[in-house]
C-alpha cells in the first residue's frame, strides 16, 4: 500500500480587507492557478493548493499565512 502524504497545514488568506488590498499578486504567481480574486474576495482551491508558500512571499502586505 502506498501512503499518501497530505499537507494538513492550512493556508489562510486574510481577505476581509483588514490586511488584503485585493491586488492579485498571489493570483498571478500561484503555480497551480488555484487562487481566485473577485472584487473584494479571495478564494483558493484547498485541494489543489500544495502550501508551496509562494503566494505568502508574493503578498506585499503579509495577508497570507501558512500554519
Amino acid at each position, binding site marked *: 500500500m502506498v501512503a499518501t502524504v497530505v499537507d494538513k497545514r492550512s493556508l489562510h488568506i486574510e481577505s476581509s480587507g483588514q490586511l488584503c488590498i485585493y491586488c*492579485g499578486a498571489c493570483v498571478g504567481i500561484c503555480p497551480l492557478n488555484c487562487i*481566485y480574486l473577485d472584487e473584494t474576495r479571495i478564494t483558493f482551491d484547498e485541494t489543489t493548493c500544495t502550501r508551496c508558500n509562494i503566494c505568502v512571499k508574493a503578498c*506585499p502586505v503579509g495577508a497570507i499565512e501558512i500554519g
Partner: protein
Amino acid sequence: MQDLTTDVLVVGAGPAGSMTAKWAAMSGAKVLMIEKRQEIGSPVRCGEGMSKSWLADVGIKPGKWINLEVEGARIYSPREQCLEINEKNAGNEVGYVVERDGFDKQLAIDAANAGAEVMLKTAATDVIRENGAIVGVKAKRFGEPFTIRAPITIAADGFESQVGRWAGLPTNLMLKDMDTCLQYRMTNVDSDERYCDFYLGSCAPGGYVWIFPKGNGLANVGIGVQVSQIKTTAEAKSYLDKWIAKHPAYAKGKTIDIVGGGVSISPPVKQSVTDGLMIVGDAARMIDPLTGGGIANGCIAGKICGQVAAEAVATRNLSATFLAKYDKAWRGLFEEKLYRNWLAKEKLTSLPDDVFDKVVDALQGVKLEKLSVHNILKAVHSRYPEITKEFEAFL
C-alpha cells in the same frame, strides 16, 4: 442570465483589452468586452508613469487623464548619487504621469464608441473548449452563471492571467521573474515635478523605489521587490516604510491611497495564440522586465490583436496557424527588446550596492541624448563591459 454569442470576446477591460476591443470593432467585428470589476480602471494597480511617443500610433489622444508631463528621469545609486537625464533639454518627448483609472476609462469609452459592447461585474470562470479549440468562456455576471460563445476569445486578464492558463498557454512565472509592489499616493511631499525618480540597490532588492510626481505636492511613492529575494512576509511594505522614514521630504507626507500588485519581470510568453484564443498585455508577460512598464506594449499589441481577431472572424480562420500572424507581429516590434532587458535584469538584480555606486558614478558626465534603457545600457557597456557581457550582443 441568458447565454450570449459574439464574434470577438475580450476578457478584461484594462488598456490592452480595450485597445483590442476597439480595433476589432473598428475592423468590423461584433465585440463583447467583459470586466469583473464594477468600475473600469479602479482600484488602480500602477505607478502611473508612462512614455508618450507611442500614443498617436495606436490612436490614443491626450486627455484629462494626464496629470503632468515630466522632463526626464533621475536615477539614484545606493549612496544616492544622482544621474540626471533631462530629455526636454535635448528637445525630445519624454512622458506623462497619469491618472490610470481615467486612462483606462477613456480607452474603454473609445472601445465602446467604436461599437464594442462592455459588460461589467462579469468574471470569466473557465474557458469552453470544443474539438481542441477555445470557443468562449463560462462566466458569472452579478454572481449568476452563463456562457459566452465566440469564435475568437482574447485573454486580456492582466498580471493574474488565468484565462490563458485555462486554455493551456503556459504563463507561469518563476519567483525571480516577478516583483511584488506596493505604493502610497502621498500628499504634502517635496518632489521635483520635472522628474520621475528611481532609487536602486538594497533599498529595493531586485527592483527599485520610484517617485512619480502628480503635481501640487502629490506623488506616487512606490517599491518593487523581486519575490525570489523576499525572506519574510510583508517585506515589500517594510522596505517601502523604511525608505520613506529615511527621506524627510517623504516622511512628512500623508498617504491618501495604497496601491499594490504584481509585475512580471520575465521574458514574454513563448506562445501567445492557440486555436480560437489570443493572449495580450500583462497576461502575455509583455511588461518590460527592466522598467516594469507594460502599458505601451499592451496597447501596441492590443491594436494588432484586435485587427487580427476581426480578420480571423471575417475569413473564418480561427486556427492557431492563422492567429500566429498576431504573435509574429508583436514579436517583430518588441520581443528582442524585452529579451535584452530581461537578460539585463538577470544581471542587475544580482549586483551589490558598491557596484551600482560605481556604475552610476561612471555614468556621470556621459551625455545621454535620449532617455532610454538601451542608451543607459550602452553607456554602462562602454565603462563596465563586464556587467553587460551576458547581453552585449543586444546592445
